[in-house]
């Protein structure tokens, strides 16, 4: 079990370890970036300022480069999971809250269509009352064209755990909408119905 080696280190250091795959990996990263970066960036822009979003976007792909052999292909779920964690760490480090609700409220303010205005306002106000985990599962499901498997991967859980979580989040959002008086044939009322499935 004990391995003793004396004086053989040079050979190991100066061996033939050529990083021939470096250019290959860069090509893979380029490909992934072109296919998926816009969606990851949208996720980040929904939650933080543009500068931080760009920084984290870069970190996501730098991380992907370092772990290229471990990243599943297609990498979309992994990329979202990495973006989530990098952003969460950053917000935690800087003691900031994610800006999702603020973004939604801004978006409400810019809406000119009265029905859409009511719907967006109802959504922003009720989402704000839900646990952050519910917000995450609902927006990941609806906003970035992730498959359920990819959303589960992004959240770091199994597909069945994701299903349970989504089901509960939908119910809580529907309850919150109803509790806030959004019922019946109004857009928000229909939204609540759709959430109940």
């Amino acid at each position, binding site marked *: 079990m004990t391995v003793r080696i004396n004086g053989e*280190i040079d050979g190991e250091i100066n061996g033939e370890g050529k990083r021939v795959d470096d250019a290959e990996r860069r090509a893979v990263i380029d490909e992934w970036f072109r296919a998926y970066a816009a969606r990851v960036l949208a996720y980040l822009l929904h939650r933080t300022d543009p500068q931080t979003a760009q920084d984290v976007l870069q970190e996501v792909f*730098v991380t992907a480069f370092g772990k290229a052999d471990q990243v599943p292909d297609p990498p979309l779920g992994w990329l979202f999971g990495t973006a989530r964690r990098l952003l969460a760490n950053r917000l935690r480090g800087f003691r*900031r809250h994610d800006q999702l609700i603020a973004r939604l409220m801004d978006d409400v303010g810019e809406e000119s269509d009265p029905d859409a205005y009511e719907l967006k306002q109802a959504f922003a106000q009720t989402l704000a009352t839900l646990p*952050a985990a519910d917000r995450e599962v609902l927006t990941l499901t609806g906003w970035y064209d992730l498959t359920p498997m990819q959303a589960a991967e992004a959240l770091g*859980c199994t597909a069945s755990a994701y299903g349970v979580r989504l089901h509960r989040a939908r119910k809580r959002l529907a309850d919150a909408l109803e509790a806030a008086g959004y019922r019946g044939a109004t857009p928000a009322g229909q939204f609540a119905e759709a959430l109940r499935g």
Partner: protein
Amino acid sequence: MVENMSRWLRSVRPSTASDEDWIATPAAAEQLAAVHRRIGPASTAKEQRRSAAPGWVRGRVVRKPRVWLAASGLACAVTIAALISSGGTATPPHGGITETPHLPAIRPAALLLSNYSSCADVLAGLRTHAAASVGSYGWWPDKRTDIRFGIAPLAGRQQLSAGPAATSAAAGDTSTTNVQESGVDEPDLVKTDGGRLITITDGVLRMVDTASRAITGSLDLTMYQGWQNAQLLVGGDHALVTLGGSNNGYNYGSFSNGPAAASGPRSTYLFLDLAGGPKITGSLRAAGSYLDARLIGSTVRLVMSSAPSINLPLGAGSNATRSAANQAVIRQAPLSAWLPQYSITSGQNTTDYTVPCDQVSHPAAYTAASMLTIYTLDLNHLGVSPKPVSVAADGDTVYATSTSLYIASNPNWCCATAAKAQQTEIHRFDITGSGQPTYLGSGGIPGRLLSRYSLSDYAGSLRIATTAGAGGSATQSSSLYILDANTLKVTGRVGGLGKDEQIYAVRFIGPVAYVVTFRRTDPLYVVDLHDPAAPMLVGTLQLTGYSDYLHDAGSGRLIGIGQQASKTGRVSGLQVSLFDVSKPAQPLRTAQVVRSDAPGGPSLDPHAFLYWPPTGLIVTPVQSWRPGQSGKVLVLKVSGTKLNTVGLLANPLAAHSIDDGLGIQRSLIVNATLWTVSGSGVQVSDPATLSRQAWIPFD
């Protein structure tokens, strides 16, 4: 219907700048170019350092690959960012830092030995090596050739540094926060000398009088760039505050294809006088990123890494065309592009300096893509010349004893599949006394470091634990190397630790090393290092779960802090273990405390751990991601071979905050009472009963 719900969700989605064919815009191209710049070897080594540095260090990205694995094993744990916003108001109490024209570089009276014979040679060497390092994307060749390590000619000094055993420094009845080597202080969020406690939380420095248990002064640091990473070193009535550099911490930010940038990121260090309440008396601003610092006596060694300020064209065309263009620019670059610049502000006066070229050395092989610089300051005479020395080398991990300082890097960690390519470079400096450090030479070994705890200088040997091989592959395994500290040549090695596993914790205690690797189970290895030529694996203990921090409890006992895990490697809560290692061949776990209610969070920051030998008290953080709940500490007591649970302790939440995501960040013993520091304030408790004696809220 899911589709129906998705359509509704979609209709409330705010549009973003990245929705409309963003990928085809120049902005996207710039982002991709930035990714390639960041993939450069040194910047990824930095990333590795950050991911390897354990802990909840504020402002740093803390993400270990295994945290990831752990998280995926939990039931869909969605982490929630701290819901607290900085309450600090930004009214600068200080005139800020002004720039004045460059003054001629200071020439020291006595020239230290340098590998260059003239400044022209310095420039020629830097240009040649940098041109060889640059590729089509930036500061790395498209096909890296192996860096050959060699020992630079030594400066004639042959000092043996018999490092003291790593035992806790306990002066009277007041502790420090945890440090790696006794007598070698590390920058931290909290410092105390028993009489006063100084804290930095949310960018505000506060002084607490420990007798009256009242805040006696505060200083808002949030107008300074890098305040999120502010830490301090204190000696007597003087303190040095280290601030992070640029927010993202990358030291390769100065390369752009835009107009010539000034000189890249700078890092700021504030000089504080504490005698009449905290007051800023001056500052040092230096080019590059702050890596780490150490305080020995009143002498501070600040370690910085800077990149040459050369604007590479990074233009269009084939790889060969771009490489040639980049090389042409480097061959014309002036010496000032590499020499780190710094400025000293004292009162109202700011003076600019450049590290003189006769203070620049280099290892036998180097990329010239970054410079390591050590600045030396005396806490009692802050504001005098910091006597910098520079080495043209890459580095990210700093380790020091009272006489030697080592800077290590993993230049090629990015290329994980080429197992042999993973190497750790080590540069050694003599820091005996309070004078300018002397660069002694460099060496290298295969594999990656976990953290500074992977290094230990003891009785003339440098011991290093590394993991080599691609992560998650069968080729991955860990080794312990022993190097002659004077030549940095390998004298012995123990390999094959934890096949297919990576190092989670390593601790050197005197002539013995304890190594924890983990994949599904946690082997604790005991390695006897008495004979530098023939280190030997003498004991192995297989357990479920793992320890990611190990601490000497004296009398042949070892404390392990980590995670309990099932037999399949799924983590299931915080675990504190007490090992009996008095018989190295038969390590035993004599006691274990598992908190299944504590989530598998990021690994422990050693600074957040406290072991207080006089009473056997262990205080270690327990994370909580629940809103409205603050992170607590678990308080245990070592008695003989047993662990007794004293209890869980939380700090109250501040009135203005919803929750205090990080909770208790540091624990200390001050005048025999337990002081716990969170973002909300400082709590003073009876260490035996955890009953509260005082609560000192931060407003």
